[in-house]
């Protein structure tokens, strides 16, 4: 999947918050990311220094990508689903999650996410996600053996499971039991000292004994259990971090005039969950609302903007007639109008004009789209430039219909939850 253009990413941040915002965020010690659900693919638009250090990636490798890049085979699918649903419902969530660093090592962290609402739009414009690594406490003793016994038995397991230090560091998907060995005391005061498996040495009996004897080397790796509860301290850290980031964002949005806030303000036109679903569709299309005066566009895909040459803020709220021009056939327009009134689908071949006044033949398909109430909520218009070819060999008609289908599913489903309204 191609990442969205850097321009869009930059704009997502810069159009909202003044230049000083980045500096202020960079001064925070916390690990966090900021994502934009309105950009196709719901990418990260900002990653804190702490986050990059924790995950082992550089800024370029993270900005523009989706958060799933940090998930892996042992990440609990139910937890992923919970996060996905929180995004869909435009609310916050706090959950323990297993993530993977760049070197492939897994680590548990407390994931706390909060929505940021745009005051004008009344919908979510960003999500802030804070990640607090979960420290492991000293292992409980089992079967009357001491810590020594645990370490030895664990090392045996490790040797069975891996044969090189590379593999040791890159904890495998299949091997799901690597134990935590942690030293108590002052070592734990250093936030940085948890979970650095690359510092681990391959274990054999001799090295283990010297480790025990000298207790110099801090060796930790995490047990990948089903669950890993965060402590109250860690939860507090997460709460503070979220609060810090949100303060910075609200403060620095004042100077751009495009205020943000932590709570939704006013009704929303198209919910961010619908935005996310619609963002998956790569073709050109618009959604118009037949219940509002002059049937304005309430959503326009990136492909539509590219095809017509307009910016998003130039088309939202406008009736589609701006696409027509001197040579547009009035009977085609009439046919469209009639279909909308009859609440039926139709296909027309119509001459449309781009922003730069050049014209193109548009194979336009229009269809009513119902929401969960069963009533029509929008009409969708799918545009195909005559002569364009689909790499899969689908006909223009089939391509249009697949867009209509995806949109019907998205609109119906996103309006089902009573909690959204």
């Amino acid at each position: 999947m191609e990442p969205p253009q850097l321009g869009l990413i930059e704009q997502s941040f810069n159009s909202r918050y003044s230049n000083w915002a980045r500096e202020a965020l960079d001064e925070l010690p916390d690990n966090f990311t900021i994502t934009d659900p309105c950009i196709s693919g719901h990418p990260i638009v900002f990653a804190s220094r702490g986050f990059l250090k924790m995950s082992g990636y550089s800024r370029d490798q993270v900005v523009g990508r989706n958060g799933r890049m940090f998930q892996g085979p042992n990440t609990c699918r139910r937890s992923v689903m919970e996060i996905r649903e929180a995004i869909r419902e435009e609310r916050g969530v706090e959950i323990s999650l297993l993530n993977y660093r760049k070197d492939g090592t897994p680590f548990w962290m407390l994931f706390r996410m909060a929505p940021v609402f745009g005051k004008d739009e009344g919908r979510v414009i960003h999500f802030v996600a804070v990640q607090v690594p979960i420290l492991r406490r000293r292992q409980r003793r089992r079967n009357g053996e001491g810590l020594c016994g645990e370490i030895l038995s664990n090392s045996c397991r490790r040797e069975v499971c891996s044969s090189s230090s590379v593999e040791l560091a890159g904890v495998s998907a299949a091997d799901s039991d690597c134990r935590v060995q942690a030293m108590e005391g002052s070592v734990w005061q250093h936030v940085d000292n948890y979970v650095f498996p690359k510092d681990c040495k391959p274990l054999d009996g001799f090295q283990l004994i010297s480790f025990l004897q000298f207790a110099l080397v801090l060796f930790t790796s995490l047990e990948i259990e089903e669950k890993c509860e965060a402590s109250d301290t860690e939860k507090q850290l997460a709460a503070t971090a979220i609060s810090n980031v949100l303060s910075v964002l609200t403060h620095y949005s004042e100077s751009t005039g495009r205020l943000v806030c932590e709570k939704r303000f006013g009704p929303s036109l198209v919910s961010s969950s619908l935005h996310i679903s619609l963002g998956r569709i790569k073709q050109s299309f618009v959604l118009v609302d037949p219940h509002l005066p002059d049937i304005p566009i309430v959503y326009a895909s990136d492909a539509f903007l590219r095809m017509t040459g307009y910016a998003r803020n130039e088309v939202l709220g406008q009736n589609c007639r701006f696409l027509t021009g001197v040579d547009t056939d009035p009977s085609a327009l009439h046919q469209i109008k009639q279909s909308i009134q009859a609440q039926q689908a139709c296909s027309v071949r119509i001459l449309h004009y781009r922003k730069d006044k050049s014209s193109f033949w548009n194979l336009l398909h229009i269809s009513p789209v119902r929401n969960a109430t069963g009533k029509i909520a929008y009409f969708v218009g799918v545009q195909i430039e005559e002569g364009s070819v689909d790499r899969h060999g689908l006909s223009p008609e089939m391509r249009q219909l697949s867009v209509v289908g995806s949109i019907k599913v998205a609109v119906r489903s996103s309006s089902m939850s009573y909690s959204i309204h």
Partner: protein
Amino acid sequence: MMLRIKRVPTVVSNYQKDEGEDAARRGGGCGRNCLQKCCIPGAKLPLYTFKRAEEIPGDKCVLEHDDNQAPVAFLDSLLLGQWEDRMQRGLFRYDVTACETKVIPGRCGFMAQLNEGRHLKKRPTEFRVDKVLQPFDGNKFNFTKVGQEEVLFQFDASEDGEVQFFPDAPVDADSSPSVVAINVSPIEYGHVLLIPRILECLPQRIDRESFLLALYMAIEAGNPYFRLGYNSLGAFATINHLHFQAYYLAVPFPIEKAPTRKVTTLGDGVKISELFDYPVRGLVFEGGNTLQDLSNAVSDACIFLQDNNIPHNVLIADCGKRIFLLPQQALGEVSSELLDTQVNPAVWEISGHMVLKRKKDYEEASEENAWRLLAEVSLSEERFEEVKALIFEACSYTLSEKEDEHLTQGAGDDKPPLEGTGSINKGRNCNMVSGTQECLVLQ
């Protein structure tokens, strides 16, 4: 003595008639453009071929589109487009998007839909439901009798390891094609039927190859809201011709949200958990070193259940990453009150999606009602423990040929869960990992 219930089945094809009418028609060539010998020669349908997992390095294929934020996968696109096309051609009995639907308030999030047109108004047909395995009966309706316009595309593994799409491929009877067809009484948008090796006329029973095909479909669609379901005979399957169902609903299903308790990990890496705090008792399969391992674990469990006449439902969710297996009570033990409501607790209902035909039922739908309805068909705790243990034996037995004895001992243990964590003794998992197992280095 045979157990029968009189139920009103739903019509899945416009060509599904009463047996009587069918018999009369069976005489000569049908002229209906069906999928039988009379019409297959020269028939053409789109063909989608998927790449098999072993042809892809690592588990890249599984992680590629596994999100509601990744671009719409091509199979997803194809299926939705073809479905919308049939909508506009009027092949469905009603517009399902015009049916009101809602999430019932409560912590589970059961979904209800008011659908007055789904059920037939005709006289009910009889259907033997006390036997999970019944031989295929060519006299009854089967999917070779559907019109080709109801078939969306053929779906098979590619021969050369590449995902390919042919808009107009001949239907080659010798290659035993599998197809995806519409359900003309859809529960939701995109409701289709996956019919493995349709021309072989397999009865409704799971086999390893067919289940793997269903799993591939979930993966290829790459959409966590596109789920596949299977009903065995006796668990409210309506047609004894092997098929899976699937549709789109972009909200989480209550069963997916239900908490789970890990029970065991098989030697091939398949993790099995059980549902708790959910009206129906069932197992969840995840993981596996390879896709085949996961698929085979579930298939083997189903094969065990069907061989032992235990009706069951299967839900493939989360792009094939989580598979739910739910054994059901034998129908003879279900209350007649339930059977009369005509809400058949099949896989979708058990997963938390109820279709109601009366406005009154829809308006009064509540979490307690839904819970009670589903709890009726669940196995009792005792019986579930029995069945669970037998399933593990069945799964481990097929593995024991490859693994060392260390492993099967672990599988047979029945240690109680740890307090608080709800997971079975970690020691058991340690035993499960055999020394011969390879570790995969993450890419």
